[in-house]
Each structure stands twice: as structure tokens, then as C-alpha cells.
């Protein structure tokens, strides 16, 4: 069943939280980046954008990147971790940018 933007955002947040656990032992900057993504995603969660169709492709990219990063962490593949984290940051930035939609003013 297709997932909504909100569901994929929630899944991305959960994946990022799992990745963060103990990550500081490998690289503190990785941990900092992921904590920032989680904080921003939680701040945006439940806003109108994630109820819309245009939220689906961008949150799908972020979710897939978070799944890949979690797999790399669980397999201890640290050589591939940094470029995969860069991809997640890039897709997260797209989500954050698009979700910052302005409101309608009706006078």
C-alpha cells in the first residue's frame, strides 16, 4: 500500500534515531548531522505539506536514504557511510525546503 508523505517522514525519523544510537563513537560530526535532521523533521511533522501529494516523492527519497544508512551502520560498513550520509542530508534539505510552504492570506 502506498505510503503518505507523513508516514514516510515518520519512518525517516525513526531510522535516523536508530542510526544515531552510539554513532558518536565513530564520528561526532555524523551524530550531530543526524540529530539536526531529526530535530528539523520533528518540527515539520504533521504540517500540511506532508498531507499533500508533492510531499511523497521528496519524503520517499529521504526515507530510502535513511534505510540505506541504517543498513550500512548495522553492517559496520563505515567506508560507505559518509557518502550515504551526504545523500541523506541532501534529500533532507529538499524536504525541509519544500515543507516550508507559505500560508494563504485571504483578505
Amino acid at each position: 500500500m502506498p505510503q503518505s508523505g507523513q508516514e514516510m517522514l515518520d519512518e525517516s525519523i525513526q531510522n535516523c534515531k536508530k542510526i544515531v544510537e552510539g554513532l558518536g563513537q565513530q564520528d561526532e560530526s555524523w551524530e550531530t548531522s543526524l540529530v539536526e535532521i531529526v530535530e528539523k523533521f520533528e518540527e515539520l511533522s504533521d504540517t500540511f505539506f506532508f498531507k499533500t501529494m508533492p510531499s511523497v516523492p521528496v519524503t520517499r527519497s529521504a526515507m530510502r536514504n535513511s534505510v540505506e544508512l541504517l543498513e550500512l551502520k548495522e553492517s559496520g560498513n563505515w567506508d560507505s557511510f559518509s557518502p550515504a550520509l551526504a545523500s541523506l542530508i541532501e534529500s533532507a534539505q529538499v524536504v525541509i525546503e519544500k515543507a516550508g510552504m507559505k500560508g494563504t492570506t485571504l483578505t
Partner: protein
Amino acid sequence: MTDPVLITGGAGSVGRQLTGMFLEIGRPVRIFDLPFMDFDGLEGQDGIEVVKGDITDSESVIDAVKGVGSVLHLAALLPPNSEKDKQKTFAVNVDGTKNIVDAVTQVAPDAIVVFTSSISTYGDTSGEDTPVGVGHSQSAIDIYADSKIHGEKVVKESGVKSIILRIGSIAVPAFLAPPEPWPFTASQRVEMVHRDDVADALLASADSDESVGKVFNIAGGKSWRLTGKDYVEDFFTFMGAPVDLAVYRESTGWNDWYDTEESQRILGYQNRSYQHYSDEMRAIVEEMMSG
């Protein structure tokens, strides 16, 4: 007309759009807006003069008005901000308008002042026959409408050459979050107007001697006459969002269907139908999906 047109609140989206339209027809533009606004793309451009100041400061308003041929007075506090502080809203929307007409009287007495009022000034007209004409009584149900009624009075009593545009709710063809609540009930009559049609009406008013002394309703025309439910359900469908997320006003608001026969005959601004707007919205969402 070669004297510049002054656009108050001109650094906003409608002001920027109008600026481009005036430059296209070779008319210089003077933008007046608050110093902290973003003037990128305006400052230093040929044909554009930027005056930074506050509409509540009569001295800076005089600087802005000197030598202009027309004034499009857009600067105002809008809902929801207008509903937070009546004193501040009246300072900007009423006293600021007084500063404009006083300055025009002093330093640009031949200029036409176009005052942007609102159809909200009619109040709740839901139990009445339509369309609502400009002769209908005014009865504010919020601070914004109250300020616009007082603003109209200031303009009319000033003796300047003026045109009053009572503008309907503006439909912006963009990916925007919906208001919560929508300022009308589901069953209420609504007649929005396309943002670019409003710009066309303002452009046409700037030098319209025929319109001086008149009050016009500015609304979308017959194709835009819907119920609140029709409009909102279409909006959510364009966005691909569940319609049951829509939140309507609990009591009747100030939207209705409007008599725009005279404004359309003189200003010729109703150039975009509701179907046109719907097509634009679908295209915007499709582009977002593919991008």
C-alpha cells in the same frame, strides 16, 4: 503619463508584479516600503526608485509622494496580523492612509489615489439577494474590515482624486498551505479573484480618469461564483490532500457573489477564469511531483 506611479507596500508580491507591468509599458515606478523589507531586484534597476520609510511617518510619506502622477496604496496590515492589535492596525491602515492623502494634497494634488479596500467591509451578506453591489451598506465583522471602512472615509473626505477598489479574496496560483479556518462556511457563496486579475485592475486604475470618484468591487466574475465547499474541495484536490482536513469558519463570514459589471466594463481586468486558475494549480502540483 510619464510621472512615476507610487506603489505603497510595493516590495511585496503584488507590488513587485505591478512594478514589472508598469515598466513594460514604460512607466517609471517608485516603491515605498518599510526599510527592513527585501528590495532585491528593485533597488538600482532602471525605471525603479526605492523610498524606504514607514507609512505612519508623515515626513517619509511626503518624500515618497513628491512628483508622482498616481498612487497605488497597497500598504496595510492584513489578517491574521490585523486582528491582534486594533490600535496598530488602525495606525497603519487608517492613519497611514490619512498620511497618503494629506501628502498628495500638499505635494502632488493632480495625482490619482487608488485605495485598496476590501469586500470584507460588507460584512455578513449571506441572507441577502446577490450580487452584492457597491451601494450595499458596510458593516465590519473584524478589525481589518473596520479599518478599511475608516480608510475609505478618510479617502473620500480628503477631496483628492480617488478610486476605491473593494477587492475580493485573492486566489494565488501557488503551492500554499490553506488557512485554518477558511474565512467562510462550507455552504456560503464565495467569489474569489485571481491575483493577476487584481494586478490588472490596479494597473488600469492608475490613470483612469473615468474612474475617479468611483467605488468598484473587484472580484473574479461569474466563473468564480462557487460555494465555500466547492472552492475548498477543489483546492485540496489540486494539492492531493484529504478534503476532510479542511476547517471552515463556524459562523458565516464576509464572502459572497459581487456585482462587478461596472468595474469590468471600465477596467477590463477579469482575464482569468476559474478554469484557468484550476489548470494553473494542476500544472504547479504536477511540476512539483516531477521535480
